[in-house]
């Protein structure tokens, strides 16, 4: 790929902002619009932009494919783990109330963890999808 100075500089400027916005959407999701799914998609968009500008091989060096598979599974484990934990504490599946001392703190902690799991899985799955599509051209 021929290096393109303007594209590289603009991408390097934009990528941190996109990741910051994704984190905002992730952790502000319990007060405003957003949440794990949207944050995961925005997060993966930053890496997709990187691999569009700097090439697929460079991007795969940053996030190897086997890591992505582990991350995709990890998010589901976090989500289901919160559910099973509340089962073990004597509540219903995904009943956040028992996770902390009082009900409000428990609800807050529970939704934060579950959304984190959703975000990790969605970001990893979107990147797996993109690499699967874009990687076929190399064969």
């Amino acid at each position: 790929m021929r290096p393109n100075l303007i594209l590289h500089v603009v991408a390097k400027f934009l990528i941190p902002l996109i990741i910051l916005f994704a984190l905002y959407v992730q952790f502000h999701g319990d007060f405003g619009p957003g949440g794990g799914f949207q944050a995961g998609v925005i997060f993966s968009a930053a890496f997709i932009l990187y691999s569009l500008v700097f090439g697929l091989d460079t991007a795969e060096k940053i996030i190897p494919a086997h890591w992505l598979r582990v991350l995709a599974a990890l998010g589901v484990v976090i989500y289901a783990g919160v559910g099973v934990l509340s089962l073990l504490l004597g509540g219903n599946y995904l009943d956040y109330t028992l996770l902390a001392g009082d009900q409000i703190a428990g609800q807050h902690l529970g939704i934060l963890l579950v959304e984190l799991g959703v975000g990790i899985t969605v970001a990893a799955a979107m990147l797996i999808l993109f690499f699967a599509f874009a990687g076929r051209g190399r064969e």
Partner: protein
Amino acid sequence: MIDVFIDITLLAFLAITAVAIVRITNLFAVVMLFGVFSLLSAGLFVVMDAPDVAFTEAAVGAGISTVLMLATLALVRRSQKPYYAEAPRAHRPWLPLIVVTVTGSALVYGTWDIPGFGAPDAPAQTHVARYYIENALSETGRAGELSRLRYPGRSHGDLYRGRGRTAVARWATLETGSQDKG
């Protein structure tokens, strides 16, 4: 009133984009128009007080799926032969036209039984929404209750404070209608 005007404008643009997608044979232009279609839908969702759905539509519809379609386009031909050039001679457009018209009329007829947008007697307002409106603040410490429809604890406090309960209840209608989005 301005809402209705914006709705009509956006829906007109949606219809124009859809027709253009069907007519154009340059696949690159079609992919770009799909992105435009998603962006217009996102604008429509914002007008209908559903920023969460709009968010998803803009991120997935206009963002990720456009990139995935471009990646696919890099592997296949750039343009598509017009359908009428490949169609068999005995092709008659009347039967599909009738089928589409009848199906479309049936769908429009079906909407007559759906409660109006934001109607207070809609199932979304009479089922669990009332419980959330009454109990969300004491149970989760969050002022906005509507997103408890999907996730307990998430809220839209600014919406609740700014536009009152009607907006919240309208939102609840939209959220129940689009649970698969998020």
